[in-house]
C-alpha cells in the first residue's frame, strides 16, 4: 500500500500545504501567539517537518520530540482549545487542496493521536 505521503504528491504537496496551513495559523488570534516566538524561516521548516511526518513521509519526529518541543508553550498556557484550532486548520487546508476525504480522515486521526504528547499529559 502506497504511503499517504506518496499518494497525495510527496514533497510538493507538503510545500503547498505548509503555505496554506501557516497562513491560516498566523491569521488566527486564538493561536498565532504560539507561533510567533521564532523567525519565519525556522517556523516554516518546522511545519514542513511536522506535515511530512503526518503524511507518513521521511521524518525523524517522534512522540518524545513533540512533547519536549511543546513544553515551553504548555507553560505559556497551551491547551485543548489551541490543539483543536490547529486540527481545524489542518482539516480545512487538506480540503482546500482537494485531498480525498478518506485520506484527510487518516491524517487527522494521526494528528489527533498526538494530543497528549503535545499538551504534556
Amino acid at each position: 500500500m502506497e504511503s499517504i505521503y506518496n499518494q497525495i504528491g510527496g514533497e510538493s504537496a507538503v510545500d503547498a500545504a505548509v503555505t496554506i496551513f501557516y497562513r491560516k495559523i498566523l491569521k488566527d488570534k486564538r493561536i498565532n501567539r504560539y507561533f510567533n516566538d521564532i523567525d519565519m524561516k525556522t517556523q516554516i521548516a518546522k511545519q514542513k517537518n511536522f506535515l511530512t511526518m503526518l503524511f507518513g513521509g521521511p521524518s525523524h519526529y517522534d512522540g518524545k520530540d513533540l512533547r519536549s518541543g511543546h513544553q515551553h508553550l504548555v507553560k505559556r498556557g497551551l491547551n485543548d482549545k489551541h490543539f483543536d484550532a490547529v486540527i481545524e486548520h489542518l482539516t480545512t487546508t487538506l480540503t482546500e487542496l482537494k485531498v480525498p476525504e478518506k485520506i484527510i480522515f487518516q491524517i487527522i486521526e494521526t494528528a489527533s493521536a498526538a494530543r497528549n504528547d503535545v499538551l504534556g499529559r
Partner: protein
Amino acid sequence: MLTVEYENKKYLVHENESILDSLLRNNIMIPYSCQVGICHSCLMHVVEGKIPSESQKGLPKTYQEEKNFLPCICKPLENMKIERPLTNSKILNTSVISIEKKLDDILILKLKCDESFKYKPGQFINLINNQNLSRSYSLASHPDLNSYLELHIKRCPKGKMSHWIFEELKVEDNIKISGPNGYCFYMENSNHKPILLVGVGTGLSPLVGILQDAFTKKHNSAIHLIHGSLHSSGIYLKNELYEFEKLNKNFKFHPCALNVDQNDSDIYLTSIQTYIENNFPVLSDWEVFICGNEEFVREIEQQVFLQGAIFENIHSDAFIKKKSQM
C-alpha cells in the same frame, strides 16, 4: 572512493553514504537534526567540488547561489571540500575616504579597500576597529559602479561601535573589514518580477545597493522602495531617491513617517504596515526585501506572507542588537 575535506582533514565517503553520515562516522560533530533535508541545521558551504542538485533542495535560491548545501542529503559526485557557512572571515584593510553626516544620528561612511573586494550589493561586512570590536553593517554601494564601499551608520544610544565611528573615526584612518556575508541580494532570474523593497531607518542601506544592482542588471519590471521612519526628518536619502525616480520610470519611491513636518509634504503620514496593506494588497508574484530591526522585519515578513507573498520570494536582513545593548 570519494573524499570530503573539512577543516583540513579528508574523510572517505562510502557508497550510498551522505556527507553527514561520513562526518558523524568519523566523530566530527557538526550541527544536525532531522537528517532528511528539512531543518537545515547541518547547512554547510562548498569550497570545491560539484554540488549535487538534490543536496540544495529546499534551500532559498540566494543560499544556493552562495554555494550552500545540506550534507545530510548529499551523496557526492566527486571529491568535495566543505566548510561552515558564512566563513568569509579573511580580514582586509581599508581606509576611510569620507564621512558624511546626513542627520545627527546617521552618517554615510565610504571606505577604500586595499585589495579588490567582491560582493553582492545588499550583503554585509564586519567592521573591526582598533579595540577589536566587531559589528556588521550592510553594503549600500555597488562593486561595478563605485570604487568604494558605502555603509550607513546609525548612532545607537548604547552602541560602542557607532559611538566610536561618530566620535573617533577620521578620514584617512585605517579600519579592518571581513566578509561579505548575507543572503539579501538581487538575483537575475527574478528580473521579470515586480520588487518591493521595505526598510526602516538605516535598513535603507542594503536596499539602495539592491536597487542599483537591479537596474545595472536591466530589471524589466517595477521596483518600489518604501522607506519608513518615526519622524519625516529621518528619511535621510529623500532627495537622492526622488532624483533616482526621475531617471528611472520603473522605480517608485515611497517615504513614510509616523510624524511629518509641515514642510515635508512629499512624505506620507502613515505607518509602513498600513501603507503596504493599502497600496500593495496582493503580493503573490512579488519579490520582497525587508531590512531593519528584528521586530520590524518579523512583523513585515508575516504581513507580506499573509498578503500572498511566497515564502521563497521573501528576503530579509534583520539588524540584530548585541545583547548588551538590549
